[in-house]
């Protein structure tokens, strides 16, 4: 009697005895076992990500009233209104681009420099790392309350400090000229999270590269430019992407600190979207705004990803 060979599709568990005909159904079901394990994530992904995202695409072509539960197809009317009929749409786009243009590079550079500093062998290195990371885990609302005080024109610590250099008090939050720079400065508060990732990247750079450079007579600057930065580009690339995606969605600071003012100078895209959706119940229009943001961030991500071939070095 010749033994039956195990069908290729049932060989997933090495060394497991071949199934009998009676248990073949159970055996066949085993290959779906993995789905059971990922089911919690899968269900949450469908319920809270994929289906809402797909719904937003659909609703962006409707005049969906979330309270009345009515939804009429309006074609491209929401998109048309966005570009031509909403007085505050373009200011919100401009404010967001301004913020992204300054906050992202600043965050990437500051986080990297901080990581370089904290990667040096100094006393209390662990303490410093903890202290610099701490703000990243402070709830944003609590941090914002502190920053309100820091930025206060007459009693704020920032203006008090600048006063030593003969600089007159700056209206950080009450002047349209300074409100966005103020929020960009505030964004540095959370560079600790990026710093931790940079630190991990720095510690992955082999010491022998630096030793070889030392033998060749390289100074610290040469080593930074020719070894550290090239080998850190994958980490910089990762932090850049995270920073871009996060900055396009800036909301909390403007919502709590400035409410979009003064004179709409901090009316960012997400704040405008939120007001349309939840204060004015224009869910269809807000969905169109969300879709546009998604497309823009996606295109920028694709562009950055494409450009990474030219400047990211994977060793």
């Amino acid at each position, binding site marked *: 009697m010749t033994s039956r060979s195990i069908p290729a599709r049932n060989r997933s568990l090495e060394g497991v005895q071949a199934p009998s005909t009676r248990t073949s159904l159970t055996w066949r079901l085993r290959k779906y076992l993995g789905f059971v394990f990922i089911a919690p994530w899968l269900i949450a992904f469908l319920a809270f990500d994929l289906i809402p995202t797909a719904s937003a695409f659909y609703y962006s072509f409707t005049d969906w009233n*979330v309270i009345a539960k009515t939804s009429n197809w309006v074609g491209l009317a929401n998109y048309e209104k966005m570009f031509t009929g909403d007085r505050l749409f373009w200011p919100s786009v401009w404010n967001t681009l301004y913020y992204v243009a300054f906050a992202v590079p600043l965050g990437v550079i500051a986080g990297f420099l901080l990581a370089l500093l904290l990667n040096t062998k100094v006393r209390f290195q662990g303490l410093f790392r903890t202290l610099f990371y701490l703000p990243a885990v402070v709830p944003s609302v609590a941090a914002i309350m502190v920053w309100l005080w820091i930025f206060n024109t007459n009693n704020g610590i920032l203006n008090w400090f600048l006063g030593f250099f003969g600089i007159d008090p700056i209206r950080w939050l009450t002047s349209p000229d300074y409100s966005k720079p103020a929020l960009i400065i505030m964004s540095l508060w959370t560079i600790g999270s990026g710093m931790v990732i940079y630190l991990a990247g720095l510690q992955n750079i082999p010491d022998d590269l630096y030793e070889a450079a030392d033998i060749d007579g390289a100074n610290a600057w040469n080593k930074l430019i020719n070894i550290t930065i090239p080998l850190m580009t994958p980490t910089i690339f990762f932090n850049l992407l995270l920073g871009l995606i996060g900055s396009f969605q800036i909301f909390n600071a403007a919502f709590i600190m400035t409410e979009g003012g003064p004179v709409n100078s901090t009316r960012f895209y997400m704040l405008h979207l939120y007001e349309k959706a939840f204060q004015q119940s224009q869910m269809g229009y807000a969905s169109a705004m969300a879709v546009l943001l998604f497309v823009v961030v996606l295109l920028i991500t694709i562009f950055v990803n494409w450009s990474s071939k030219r400047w990211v070095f994977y060793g």
Partner: protein
Amino acid sequence: MSRHRSFQPNRRQLLQGAGGLAAFAALGSPATHQALAQDAAITLDYWNWWDVQRQELMDAIIADFQEEFPDIVVNNVPQTWDRRAEVVTTALAGGDPPEIIMASRQEIVQFADSGAIAPITQFVETEGLDLDRYYPSEIASMWWNDELYALPMPTAGGETGLYVYNAQLFEEAGLDPENPPETWDELDEATAALTKLTDNGALDIPGSNLSMSAQGFLAQLYTNNGTLYSDDLKTVTWNSPEGVEALTWLFEYVQRHFGGHQNQLDWTNAIQPGERRFDQGRLAIEFTNVSVFFHIRNNAPDLQYGVGFRPYNSNNADAKSQGVAALSFGWGYIIPSSLDEATQEAAFKFIKRITYDDAAADFMLQQERPSPLIDANENPEYQDINPHWDKVIQSMEHDVSVGIVPVQTEIISVLTDYVDLVAFEEMSPEEGLNMAAEEAQGILDEYWSSAS
């Protein structure tokens, strides 16, 4: 070998046994008895924003209510203020809303227009409620399309008609505390005398907290015989000559006394959450609402202060001092239309308790604030608590109800933007109001055309 065969249940038997035990345990527990009893009753989740010490007062009302109506279970669910509009909107949209929601006047009209909440006109008639017990300005904004959708509590009035002033600062400035300002001109003079600036020109003690904001403008508008909309709510009227005069006066007032809008914003931004500058003697005149008396008594019981009515434009023969109800505050209680009739009826019984019955009056008295019910404010206990009570009642009587449309939030948002532009000297008051009116009229026209 023993003949005794031990019992070894198979998996199915084991599961059956465990299930039976669990069911027995669950049925026998006191919690389940209570749950079963409550299943027979109607349960009302009551979302409100009566937090802190008011929660205890509300719990006491609920306990009394449930004693009288044991078949209705009321869950007191105070909410946080954070992202309130988002929470209420999603609750209604989600399909399983709470049975009673404390809603703003704007929300009531918006939700009523959308069909998301149930009219209570029939319940009011069945229960024989006398709506004349409410101040006209209070009950007016509860109606939409000839149907009543909510009952008020607390007041939407008493928000803009009154001000309090620091008697000591008046004396120090050479003003008579017995004769507070009654007109715009008098307020102008008093503010000039009361305002103190620091050496570098920052505001130290402002003469008043009148400011360049949409709410500030609208309050002034009504003291110059202006209005927000026409009577039929179809035309924006804030850019009338009265409106332009009111905003111009307000702009110049802020420029003249406070060194401009930004100076005032800097002063306002320095105020910490919960801090009350008036109670600290660092603000001379505070335009505020009727909850102020409670705060002063708690924070500064020895403060010598007086009460005045919002000054009017004495150069306009038709103008008078009047407050505006439902402009920025005031609450009512709504019932989602998705509920079955029995639940709606039960919800209404509780709403009646907190807005119409003695308990409603007592709830306001405990907080030392007026009730929307006229007769409740005649309780002599108020006079004992508050020496200024006569003025509170007069203010409530003088209040007019501002018109509300379902697109109110959007319209006020437009006005806010343009008043801000005027405040930052980007355009003149007239230009700002005209542009705001034109844009708001477009929103209004679009709404009315879709409504018809």
